[in-house]
């Protein structure tokens, strides 16, 4: 046998096409039979023993990034995963922009470049959030402009308040009590939620003041993880932020992952599963989903790109330039990665044992 060395981008693109084909094939088969029989042509990388598996085990939830974004109707409410610079679903934000989605409401504790992209394009106009900036780099310029223009509204909460709203949604209770926000304008002032933003009450048991925040049950949860199997069992490395609660509070959960692993890997280390498949509606596998942000154990943030992004968003013209160049000017996520450049991307890959 002869091995030919191919450039990584070619391999990744082939894998991408194969994934699309195999997931389509499997869904068509599932539709015809309900239970899969031996197919005429099995995608070569799928397990040989799939004939022996039960129906739930063979569920292949993989779809493409394009298909995932297509499911989100205008005006939907989305839990948005990732925290700070970590595991931001940037590729999904890009795809929502390319598909010209409008008027989404975003729920998250703190997100940064992804919110800038969505608010800058009008993809999202309402934000139930605690924080947005590019942290050490400075203010969120697009958010600042759109809020000043009256084109975006932020319903302000604290980080703990948002995390507890997701926990409440995941637990299927209407509200959660917290000890933050009382005495401040976070309680006194509200926007589109009006008097449903929160309530401060006297505790019926102790009589002390307590703040009730309404549970969040958005239409979708979008969470970016390191690894997933085809049924949706998801592994997260590093910190989880508020993603465990957030993943479980949406009506549908889309998991984006850097790497596809076999179910055997999941079952050999079940304690690594942070989101079990039973919560997951769809799975998207693609590399460098968070670029220019980071993904622990996979790649570091791209400081040069981030600084450039922050600089360009200081003016509307600069932002439109960035948008035309990196988001609208490319066909898909792979085209974006080509534009950023594979040499550059490979330079961001994490080194052991640091994770960045």
């Amino acid at each position, binding site marked *: 046998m002869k091995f030919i060395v191919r450039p990584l981008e070619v391999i990744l693109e082939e894998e991408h096409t194969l994934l699309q084909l195999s997931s389509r094939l499997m869904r068509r088969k599932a539709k015809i039979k309900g239970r899969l029989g031996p197919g005429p042509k099995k995608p070569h990388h799928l397990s040989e023993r799939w004939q022996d598996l039960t129906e739930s085990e063979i569920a292949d939830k993989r779809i493409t990034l394009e298909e995932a974004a297509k499911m989100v109707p205008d005006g939907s409410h989305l839990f948005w995963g990732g925290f700070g610079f970590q595991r931001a679903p940037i590729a999904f934000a890009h795809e929502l922009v390319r598909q010209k989605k409008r008027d989404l409401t975003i729920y998250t504790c703190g997100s940064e470049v992804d919110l800038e992209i969505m608010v800058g394009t009008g993809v999202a106009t309402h934000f139930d959030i605690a924080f947005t900036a590019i942290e050490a780099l400075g203010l969120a310029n697009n958010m600042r402009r759109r809020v*000043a223009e009256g084109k975006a509204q932020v319903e302000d909460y604290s*980080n*703990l308040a948002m995390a507890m709203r997701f926990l409440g949604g995941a637990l299927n209770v209407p509200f959660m009590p917290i000890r*933050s926000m009382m005495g*401040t304008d976070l309680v006194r002032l509200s926007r589109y939620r009006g008097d449903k933003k929160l309530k401060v009450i006297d505790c019926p048991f102790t009589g002390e003041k307590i703040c009730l925040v309404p549970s969040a049950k958005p239409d979708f949860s979008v969470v970016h993880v390191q690894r997933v199997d085809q049924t949706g069992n998801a592994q997260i490395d590093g910190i989880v*932020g508020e993603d465990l609660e957030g993943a479980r509070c949406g009506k549908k959960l889309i998991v984006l992952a850097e790497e596809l692993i076999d179910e055997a890997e999941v079952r050999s280390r079940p304690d690594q599963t942070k989101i079990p498949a039973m919560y997951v509606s769809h799975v998207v596998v693609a590399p460098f989903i968070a670029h220019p942000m980071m993904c622990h154990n996979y790649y570091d*943030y791209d400081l040069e790109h981030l600084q450039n992004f922050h600089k360009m968003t200081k003016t509307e013209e600069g932002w439109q330039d960035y948008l035309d160049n990196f988001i609208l000017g490319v066909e898909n996520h792979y085209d974006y990665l080509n534009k950023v450049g594979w040499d550059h991307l490979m330079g961001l890959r994490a080194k052991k044992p640091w*994770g960045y």
Partner: protein
Amino acid sequence: MAKYTKIEFLTAVASTHVKDGENVFGGTGLPLLAALLAKETHAPHANLLSEAGFIDARPKNVPLSVADSRYYYGSSASIGLIETLGFILQAGRIDVGFLGAAQIDEYGNLNTTYIGPFDKPKVKLPGSGGGNDIASSAKRLIIIMTHDKRKFVKKLDYLTSPGHLEGPGSRKKWSLVGGGPSVVITDMCQFDFDPKTLKIRLMSVHPGVTVKDVLDNVMFDVIVPERVPTTKEPSQQQIDIMHRLDPHGIYLAKGGE
């Protein structure tokens, strides 16, 4: 006498407020450097946490984000937000929180959300993040700000994080877990709070700064005690450690801002 920049001075002063063995929310930027400096000098057993989920962190390189992977290696645990802001902070287990702000009033209440009227904001600032949670529930709060008259206001454009609210009794009225701000450090001086009125009080002025300079640069009345000492300057050892912690000058190179 050691030579130092404004930012090095602020960092050194802030670090002196961390005591050994305390549980500290460091965040990023100058507060993080201050906490790390404290650990390297007088408070080796300080437990540094990041709200994203890192516990007892000993980062090798300075993180740019509270969720930065640079926080991961060397931490004793890497969990999530309900762990840090809920189980740990809200349950009263944090001794010290650091916060900055765009505006502060005489009770140490902070604005990090909007400049301008709420209905038509001129500038959208980052928002609370974990700031309100930390100000509500940390046993004490250290506030760090660059000194600018427009930041020390009689009335905040937006009250994001609670200081001593309207004075004595008001934190208790809202059942807040923590004790509120204990010190405000600027590049001109340090303030603490008068125990009777809970209003801001001049604590020390930095070398070369007069009491009048400070009073000219705030928009509210400041309680001035009879004797106002001069803030201690950083040692060469402290400055060397800072530069070892931040060799690329990610935070130190920013100078006055």
